[in-house]
């Protein structure tokens, strides 16, 4: 350490490094590994018992759907880091991305605990935890996220509209998921509601600001809304696994939150003086959409980048 940073007593007060050299046990990286800790299991000590009468595959697939929505949306938002119009919004989008990544980690871990057969098999001796195996070692057609999350990023207005639609819908789902019979899903939802409320308010305020700003900001906002609107109805489709999870009391039927989500969106549109778009929904391919693993080409390219390092080193220790 002395070789890298040398301070004399006289200049210590002015050195930006001096504060870093005390109490360095706090630094996570470079600290001695913990031999008998629980490693990194995000659900260590959490009751992951499957509730009575619930099919393990149904619970796992439902958790994967919610987890994949968060993971893919998180990654797209992370691509904004260092690219946003100003520092405050760069930090805001990164924070939203981080919240969603945390939700994704818990939900993918929950899926793996409910039904280990959903987790890709890695080479023997691989230290990759199950939630990472799900994130980094599945193909695009195994992802069950809604297609809204995966689109290639546009301008800041597009990010604003996407976060507004996504968080309005997800918050409506999570408000009800708090009553899930599954302890993990209920807990993830109870925490997620608080986070998503900040995401929704942030994007709704920017939506109004851009709509009521300059001609150019309004033009861009309306263009973004027209672009994304065809994917809004897909969020409220009920997939067979969602229907089964809802019937078992562990999940939420998306159709049941449509009215609540539309009500919130109407408030934002009214405050922004933006008419509700009329563009028809984007149909699936042979009736299949994101929940069925039917995605647009951009998801494959996004995953290729997101997964490349993990796949190159399946035995890697991070």
């Amino acid at each position, binding site marked *: 350490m002395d070789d890298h940073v040398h301070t004399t007593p006289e200049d210590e007060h002015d050195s930006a490094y001096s504060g870093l050299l005390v109490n360095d046990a706090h630094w996570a990286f470079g600290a001695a590994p*913990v031999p008998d800790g629980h490693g990194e299991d995000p659900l260590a000590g959490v009751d992951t018992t499957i509730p009575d009468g619930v099919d393990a595959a149904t619970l796992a697939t439902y958790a994967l759907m919610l987890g994949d929505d968060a993971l893919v949306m998180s990654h797209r938002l992370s691509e904004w880091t260092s690219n946003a119009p100003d520092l405050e919004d760069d930090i805001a989008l990164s*924070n939203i991305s981080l919240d969603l990544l945390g939700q994704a980690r818990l939900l993918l871990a929950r899926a793996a605990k409910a039904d280990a057969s959903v987790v890709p098999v890695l080479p023997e001796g691989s230290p990759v935890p199950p939630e990472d195996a799900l994130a980094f070692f599945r193909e695009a057609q195994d992802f069950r996220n809604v297609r809204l999350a995966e689109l290639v990023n546009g301008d800041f207005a597009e990010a604003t509209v996407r976060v507004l639609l996504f968080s309005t819908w997800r918050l409506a789902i999570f408000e009800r998921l708090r009553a899930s019979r599954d302890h993990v899903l*209920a*807990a993830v939802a109870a925490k997620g509601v608080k986070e998503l409320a900040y995401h929704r308010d*942030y994007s709704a305020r920017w939506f109004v600001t851009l709509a009521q700003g300059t001609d150019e900001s309004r033009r861009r906002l309306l263009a973004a809304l027209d672009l994304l609107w065809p994917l809004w109805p897909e969020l409220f489709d009920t997939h067979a696994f969602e229907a089964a999870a809802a019937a078992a009391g562990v999940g939420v039927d998306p159709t049941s939150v449509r009215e609540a989500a539309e009500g919130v969106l109407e*408030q934002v549109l009214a405050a922004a003086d933006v008419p509700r778009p009329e563009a028809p929904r984007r149909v699936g391919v042979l009736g299949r959409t994101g929940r069925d693993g039917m995605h647009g080409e951009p998801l494959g390219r996004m995953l290729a980048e997101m997964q490349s390092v993990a796949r190159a080193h399946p035995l890697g220790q991070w």
Partner: protein
Amino acid sequence: MRLMSRTPLQRARRAAESVTDPELPMLTLLDLGVLRDVDVVGDSHVVVDITPTYSGCPAMAAMRDDLVRELRGAGFDRVDVRVCLDPAWTTDWITPEGRAALAAAGISPPGPAPSSDGPIPLTLLPTARQVRCPQCESPATELVSEFGSTACKAQYRCTSCLEPFDHVKEI
């Protein structure tokens, strides 16, 4: 030899309660409300429950490692750190000592957390908070952004002394 006269539970509590938050080092995990329970379950075996502040809080792994290190140092060979997701952490759990430590470090402590039961109302105007500047104590402050240097903080600025500062946002 006062140390020897403490019970194992007292020793474990004292060690666990001394661990500080990696991102808010002026706060112990106890002050922050992240440390939920400490229990000695057997010969030199201690179980600690912690709760994450935010789902994606990157400090959880560091907190876990720090707890294990401190408790090992206090003579416990086996340390289990469990994650407690329910009930979800709220800023209302930050202790009065913790709030004082935040303010002393130039960070505005949180007000009462909003209720998160039932439908969450949409808020189109900046969150109404009565935030005082931690530097000059002026009430003339304005919100810069609801998202700050860590997941748990918003950015403010004081319109009297013009200093920017962090505010721990209510959840």
